[in-house]
């Protein structure tokens, strides 16, 4: 018993060391910009940089749009597959897992080939087209996470009864989805959404290859040209990731309480 506990502590402590040191190092480095001691100079420079503000704002906006698009695609699909097309389930699940199997760089390479200026749908030719392509690309990347969390959410509620109840009260499909199903899987949707946000906000490969100046390429550019600012950026990115995961935890816990109360 005690031997087991000893080994467990050892595993956790060694793991903790490996996982905490880079965080400490990153934070430490970000504070060392001025020679005479620790300061937040690197953060000041980064946060007041117009480039930072512009690219970061762009990425946040794009992440939010990705979430909306993801919900619009995934929620009706997961719902109808569960309710009306159980036979499609394996196919849909397979498709949603594909982005985990096909490397993202391959997917974006495909985009560049299909939607280039000499194709039928020359999305990469215009500013709007490129942004739309990036948006759909990110929705593709987030598909596995979005679908899985929504589908788990749907599993916990009895969608068949809910749907019949709503229908018997005269609701149509769009209304059922919007005011009956969505609120009930809201927490699951949110955890998918935060995960999407965390993935999209610092994404590099898609943006760089589509020549979009978002937060990811900005970070890489800073990494190549500055010494201390990249660490400050990494800290910012880490805090965003933490916030997203923390919010997921918070909402899941909140939903557990609400289920108990019901």
């Amino acid at each position, binding site marked *: *018993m005690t031997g*087991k*506990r000893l080994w*467990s502590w050892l*595993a*956790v402590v060694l*793991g903790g060391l490996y*996982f905490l*040191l*880079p*965080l*400490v*190092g*990153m934070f*430490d*480095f970000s504070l060392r910009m001025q020679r005479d001691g620790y300061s937040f100079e690197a953060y000041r420079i980064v946060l007041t940089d117009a480039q930072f503000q512009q690219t970061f704002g762009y990425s946040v906006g794009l992440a939010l749009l990705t979430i909306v698009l993801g919900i619009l*695609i*995934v929620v*009706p*699909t997961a719902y*109808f*597959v569960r309710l009306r097309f159980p036979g*499609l389930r394996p196919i849909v699940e397979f*498709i949603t897992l594909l*982005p*985990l*199997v*096909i*490397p993202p*760089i*391959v*997917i974006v*390479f*495909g*985009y*560049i080939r*299909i939607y280039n200026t000499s194709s039928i749908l020359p999305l990469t030719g215009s500013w709007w087209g490129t942004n739309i392509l990036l948006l*759909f690309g990110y*929705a*593709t990347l987030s*598909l596995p996470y979005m679908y899985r969390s929504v589908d788990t959410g749907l599993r916990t509620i009895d969608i068949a009864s809910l749907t019949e109840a709503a229908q018997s009260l005269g609701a149509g499909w769009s209304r059922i989805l919007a005011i009956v199903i969505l609120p009930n899987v809201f927490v699951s949707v949110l955890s998918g959404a935060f995960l999407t946000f965390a993935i999209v906000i*610092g994404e*590099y*490969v898609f943006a*760089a*290859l589509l020549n979009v100046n978002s937060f*990811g390429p900005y*970070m*890489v550019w800073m*990494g190549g040209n500055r010494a201390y600012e*990249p*660490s400050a*950026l*990494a800290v910012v*990115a880490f805090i965003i*990731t933490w916030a*997203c*995961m923390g919010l*997921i*935890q918070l909402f899941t816990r909140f939903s557990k309480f609400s289920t108990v109360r019901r």
Partner: protein
Amino acid sequence: MTTSAASLPAVLRPRQVLNWFGVAPFFLFATLFLILPTLNIVIGAFRNAEGQATLENLGKLFSPSIRAAFWISIELSLLTAVLGCLFGFFIAAAITLGDLPRLLRNAILTFSGVASNFAGVPLAFAFIATLGRLGFVTLLLRHWFGINLYGSGFNIVSFLGLALTYLYFQIPLMVLIITPALEGLRREWREAAESLGASGFQYWRMVALPVLWPSLLGTLALLFANAFGAVATAIALTGSSLSIAPIVLFAQIRGDVLNDPHLGYAIAFAMIVLTAIANGIYILLRMRAERWVK
């Protein structure tokens, strides 16, 4: 009205047609932004610039530099997948079976959720700040222990450095996936084995590991694909000094190096094939390992 609707094939009933509208956007989306792009690459890999079928592109994969790039990529992905599985398994076992405080278990799971998503550019920065020439740990080792890390040949911009960095998201991913599987091991199995005279080792060999085997394999395949497709971390960490397959492809697409789109197709195709093989092996082994559930 109801009779005429009922006599139609199920798929064509007005109701069912409406239902198809519910899933149609998904299939349209998946076709346009996932399947067609991938197919385009696959087909392109077997065509030359004039659109004729050829195996020439694939042949170019066997040029020494490309072959080396793939080889490093495979080694890197395999190594970090195996080590990630191993260490992740130990940590997950410690928090599920190791009598640790409940609070610690939850904290580690939450942290794993963060760390597994803390990939890409910021992660590379964190490792440079830690193990780079002026990194935190590098300086710590020199000042406190007199160890000169870089003097001993270590470099964060290297295979080893990249592997160390990749483990930062590989291990937590393993922890997240395998913890529920470990929690699924029923206490009674262990106790039944013990009461039948089995040692702890025999229990793990004959019951626990066979039960966990499918999940372990699945995670291994997933971690392999995860590392194989990771480009941003590698680029931010090494620039393009370490030629792994995705970086070569990145350079190809950018047109930085030889601008030969068909070589790009071939590289991309090979990447798909490798991750597909990894997952295929996984599915095959899983079916064999799970005879006892289906």
